[in-house]
């Protein structure tokens, strides 16, 4: 289900530690990088899924992504409803480059996004 385009973008994410694509409840659909940080990133991904609705009430339109600067890492969450793309990069990584690649990453997840939407629609009917 993961497009070759998505896989080809990963080497361009300099400083990437871990990448996850999760559904709205935090279940991991795609993973890449260091598995040791997966649990932490998964929890943060679920947090983003919950807070993105609040962020949409700021009067600034829909939430596209959040970048969190922690002491030991930078974490970027991007909204690809019903999915969440989460990246953990080094604290000294060039986050500008990461944010620059986000639109391409989100676009490359479109097949998986549409598949999950179909599944959710079908399960809603059943």
């Amino acid at each position, binding site marked *: 289900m993961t497009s070759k385009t998505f896989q080809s973008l990963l080497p361009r994410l300099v400083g990437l530690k871990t990448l996850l694509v999760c559904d709205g409840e935090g279940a991991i659909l795609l993973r890449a990088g260091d598995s040791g940080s997966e649990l*932490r990133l998964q929890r943060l991904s679920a947090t983003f899924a919950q807070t993105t609705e609040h962020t949409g009430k700021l009067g600034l339109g829909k939430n596209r992504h959040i970048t969190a600067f922690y002491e030991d890492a930078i974490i970027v969450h991007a909204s690809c409803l019903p999915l969440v793309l989460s990246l953990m990069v080094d604290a000294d990584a060039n986050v*500008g480059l990461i944010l620059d690649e986000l639109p391409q990453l989100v676009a490359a997840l479109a097949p998986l996004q549409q598949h999950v939407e179909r599944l959710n629609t079908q399960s809603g009917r059943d």
Partner: protein
Amino acid sequence: RASSATAAPRRPFGEGSGMSLLDPKALPEVLGEAVSPGVRVVTLLNRSGLQLGSAGNNAAAATIAAIASKVWQSHEKVDDAGALGCLLIECSEGRLAIKSIASFLVACCADASVPFGALKSKVEMLHASLQWPLQHIGQ
């Protein structure tokens, strides 16, 4: 200007208490230093989402303060994440930067014309200016 944000106690709790109080007139001036073309509002809030002061479009400040507090606390309290230094939020029609200063938060809201680097620098500048006086609030 930053040090004027806390005034000498005018009405101390008991004699000689020396408690530092926040000068409400000085705070908007300090926050206003971050207002530039594209910046809509800058607001200082407590962890409960209540404003202490703002500069710019004050009509939007209360809503931004409430939501900024909620989003910060959600991302801050995750186990094993280390200390959260700053949040940058991108929406389809604007951006928000949030940073903690002592036990408070500062939020800077701008439209998409303000680069993220500039927005982050603004909240870091406010952190540098207000860290010392806000640490002494109530002490």
